């Protein structure tokens, strides 16, 4: 049984936002009442809040920095975020900014996390230079746990090279994620794969989660 609150963390640029949005859409498809909270105080561009209209149209509630303040130079966490803990009718996805710096945003909600169980996911992309091996991934994982004062429950294997991703890269990434899982005792929940190549991976050891890519510069959106 999944917990009501899912938190997506990981190294900066590991693909948390894409996975968080896709996860919210998945829950929405299952008929759940879904809320996604954008707690990314690190990134100025390419955030969940950019997809607010699309998500609202799907019936997903988006809690994010108000538009008027989205371009302020310091990240702003809206007061409304508290409602995800209080209104238990929602299934919640929390998109957290990268690294320990981004995870600090979670610390202030610690007392709520002590009252209610949560699922915290740690997203891994082994084609990011700073998380290309087991040791560096584990270093980031522990830093994020320390900063957020929360424990990671699941790993998400999300090795990708954006539009150049190949199946062999994904499989290789899974191997590294598996080693991280072995060393930390944290299970891999799923492998995230871009939807257009998801069918190329067959009989996989881990569950495959096909994902649609949302964060794209204008010329790539046009090419889609």
């Amino acid at each position, binding site marked *: 049984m999944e917990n009501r609150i899912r938190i997506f963390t990981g190294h*900066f*640029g590991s693909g948390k936002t894409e996975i968080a949005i896709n996860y919210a859409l998945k829950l929405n498809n299952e008929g759940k009442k879904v809320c996604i909270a954008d707690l990314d105080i690190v*990134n*100025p*561009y*390419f955030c969940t809040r950019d997809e607010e209209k699309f998500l609202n149209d799907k019936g997903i509630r988006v809690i994010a920095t108000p538009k008027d303040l989205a*371009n302020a*130079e310091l990240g702003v966490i809206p007061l409304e975020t508290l409602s995800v803990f209080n209104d238990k009718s929602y299934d919640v996805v929390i998109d957290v900014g990268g690294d320990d710096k981004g995870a600090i945003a979670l610390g202030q909600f610690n007392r709520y996390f002590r009252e209610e169980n949560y699922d915290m996911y740690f997203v891994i*992309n*082994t*084609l*990011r*230079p*700073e998380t*290309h091996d087991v040791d560096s991934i584990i270093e980031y994982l522990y830093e994020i746990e320390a900063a957020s004062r929360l424990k990671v429950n699941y790993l998400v294997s999300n090795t*990708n*090279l*954006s*539009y*150049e991703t190949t199946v062999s890269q994904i499989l290789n990434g899974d191997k590294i994620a598996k080693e991280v899982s072995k060393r930390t005792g944290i299970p891999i929940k799923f492998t995230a794969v871009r939807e257009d190549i998801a069918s190329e991976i067959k009989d996989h050891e881990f569950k495959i989660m096909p994902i649609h890519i949302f964060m794209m*510069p*204008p*010329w790539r959106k*046009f*090419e889609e």
Partner: protein
Amino acid sequence: MPDKVLMKGNEAIGEAAIHAGCQCFFGYPITPQTEVAAYMSRRMPKIGRVFLQAESEIAAINMVYGAAGSGVRAMTSSSSPGISLKQEGISYIAGAELPCVIVNIVRGGPGLGGIQPAQSDYFQATKGGGHGDYRLVVLAPSSVQEMVDLVQDAFDIADKYRNPVMVMGDGMLGQMMEPVEFKERKPAQLPSKDEWKADGLKGRKEHHVINSLYLKPEELENQNLKMQKKYAKIKNNEVRYEMYNCEKDVDFVLVAYGTISRICKNAIKLLAEEGINVGLIRPITLWPFPEKAFEEVIDKTKYGFMSVELSCGQMVEDVKLASNGRKPVYFYGRTGGMVPSPNEIADAVKRNIGGAK
């Protein structure tokens, strides 16, 4: 590490500088370039090099002045308002003829402006910024891979001419992620710094002095003439540009640099579907401006040129100088962090060539 990795533009700048042998990075945070400093703060100490967060942008550029004067490769990065603060230091560095790299990840202006992508520092980068008769070589990548390559080239060009080089990208280029490769590079043949670097006497009798102050007007004029010769040489040797869809006769030619050039390519594809044949000149060096690219298409373009910018027409005068009154020059741009869609650019093309008919 794998051959190809996924990097944010700002991180790639840092890693490219490390690959180029940058020994010292001095920075100060400002959106949307802060990840350059964040990346360097993590990487540089691990490899025994210097990362220093200065107390201000002004301090950072003057630290670059000092480090470059001692003969090491040094870099600073900032975004528009921070680059404005650095102008005095940049002028001094140019005056003292020191090689260094300055990165500007441009945001909307003037003033504090906004944090969304812009190109409105074109004048500042290419026509001075600081005081005096100096020039910066200004490189404008349009992808994260090109950013990696140009940052490394920037260090070589700086050393080759003893001149500061700016790498300028809009905020989007800093923030977006693309696959990159750090290719094996042949080491460039560069002049020795032994003749001028201020790194102690090392057995010499005379100190090397780094200076931009001349008490005798004759000497200052001579220094200026010497620098002008250097700039003429740079204009001859270092021009870079990309031509897209310019092989045959075209109805119109767009001129755009940086990420907006990629949206122009989308617009060109849209226009081709309607039977309108449009080419693109993408300046890679903003100074020296690629005038010769215009020579290649001036007779081929039916209705002239259109500068497409994330600014209010700052490149138009260079396009006009390059086309030298032989063909009309138009402008289309958005500012303040607004980025035009391919359709908006295509519509602007149609408006102008309609007018020219």
